[in-house]
């Protein structure tokens, strides 16, 4: 179905998408995180166009157009606005794993996904070509790598980038393994746009972390503690 040079270019694209996911795990600078995400989406769109040229299925063409409009242009723009409003340049707080450790953890994840796919799905006929196997594995791994980004980073804006990366993984997976109906793809992307839109609106509120935002939203439930020093001053007066 897919001729050799196309397959080679597709492999190169898959590998590059995996490399961008690694960069997203490592980067601390928010602007370059967003740029890397846009580049990853662009690679994904090129991949969809490539598969369109090989198979001729119009769904892939529409998908490529939607990806370019939404994920390469609109969402990174929104995220840029959010980053500027928040006045955060870099995310240096991590929850459980440092970026280096999470990169090593993702090696284990990729190995795990690879082994489980090769044992579970090797009977399926879709895997007559190794490219489908590689694409599905990398797609699933990127979903997990996005999840790592979400739970290791503290800042909300980076969590959103992690979520977007996860979604890119789902698209890559669906390109190669199970073709999702276009309607679902469109709905997911509308979802993403709504997510970034809400993030933009909330930009005034989210200073740094979810916890602080929570306190700010509920000033009456958990009132800010008054320092004992101030109380003593009041007593003197």
């Amino acid at each position, binding site marked *: 179905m897919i001729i*050799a*040079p196309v397959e*080679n*270019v597709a*492999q*190169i694209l*898959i*590998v*590059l998408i*995996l*490399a961008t996911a*690694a*960069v997203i795990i*490592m980067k601390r600078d928010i602007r370059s995180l967003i740029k890397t995400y846009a580049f990853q989406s662009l690679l994904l769109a090129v991949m969809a166009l490539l598969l369109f040229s090989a198979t001729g299925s119009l769904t892939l063409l529409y998908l490529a157009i939607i990806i370019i409009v939404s994920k390469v242009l609109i969402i990174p723009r929104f995220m840029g606005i959010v980053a500027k409003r928040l006045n955060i340049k870099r995310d240096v707080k991590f929850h459980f794993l440092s*970026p*280096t450790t999470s*990169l*090593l953890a*993702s*090696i284990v994840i*990729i*190995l795990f996904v*690879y*082994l489980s796919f*090769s044992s579970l799905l090797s009977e399926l006929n879709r895997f007559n070509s*190794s490219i489908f*196997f*590689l694409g599905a594995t990398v797609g699933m791994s990127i979903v997990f790598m996005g999840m790592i980004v979400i739970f290791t980073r503290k800042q909300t804006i980076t969590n959103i980038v992690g979520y977007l990366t996860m979604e890119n993984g789902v698209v890559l997976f669906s390109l190669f393994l199970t073709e999702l109906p276009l309607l679902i793809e469109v709905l997911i992307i509308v979802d993403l746009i709504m997510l970034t839109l809400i993030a933009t609106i909330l930009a005034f509120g989210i200073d740094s972390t979810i916890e602080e935002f929570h306190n700010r939203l509920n000033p009456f439930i958990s009132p800010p503690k008054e320092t004992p020093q101030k109380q003593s001053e009041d007593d003197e007066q």
Partner: protein
Amino acid sequence: MDYLALIAYGILNMLFVLLISPLFISLIKIVKAHAQKRKGPPLLQTYRNLAKLLKKETVYSSNSSWIMRATPLVNVAAILVASLFVPMIIIPQPTDLVGNIILFLYLLAMAKFFMALSGLDAGSTFGGMGSSREMAISALIEPVVIVVFAAMAFAFKTINLPDMFRDALASNVLIDPVIILISISLFIIIIVESARVPVDNPETHLELTMIHEAMILEQSGKNLAMMELSSAMKQLLLMGVLINILVPWGLTADFTPQAILISLGAFLLKAVILAVIIGLFESSCAKSRLFRLPGLFAIALFLAIITLIIEVFA
């Protein structure tokens, strides 16, 4: 006859590395200068520096031992022998005599080891600091280098560098995706091993950031020239490995003058492009803190291990 060709290859390759390598040091400096809207040194400045240093007398510290005297020679010798392993323009006939990557890596490591020793030898504070930093970074990058070269060996199913280049030249696909992963790792290794910006700053002297420059601070005259020449050659060797694996087009296996000329032109063109990329990369990032460096190495390690996974399990 066979041995004659091999000897001719060796002499040509060595001379090529020896003569061309300073060019790329200046070229990267020019690219960096242009990125900062400066003019930069002329293209032949590194040759002039080396010629000037060769004329000067060598001064030894009264505290220094034979290590100080031996290090420049050991460095140049080790790197020159290593240059036999990386065919730049002509691939020699298949032979077991040259090309083992493990020996190649150990030759580079030996040069580095002696350089670190000479930094300690004179007993100056800067030299010792540079050596200890260099060794700390080496301890981190060395496993990465080994894994990357092991991934290369798995990808090409050989541990012989000329055989790898021959395979890369003969492969009919455009670019093997695995090679891209290895190339990114190799690029990071070039940056680290040739003491470039996110890791070390090659421009500064007497700054607290310097690593490589601090180690050769005690060298002077001819010895300094040899140290600088050997680090230039090391950079060109690693660049040659990257170029001949990623884009081997134009590389030749036969000894006709025409083929050699084409190959020479192609290699110079590709090396110039790579040098420009290195210069732009250096200009685009700042020197990072010592404790942030493992992150950079982890990317190289990650990509190399992915290569291993793909090669071993696929």
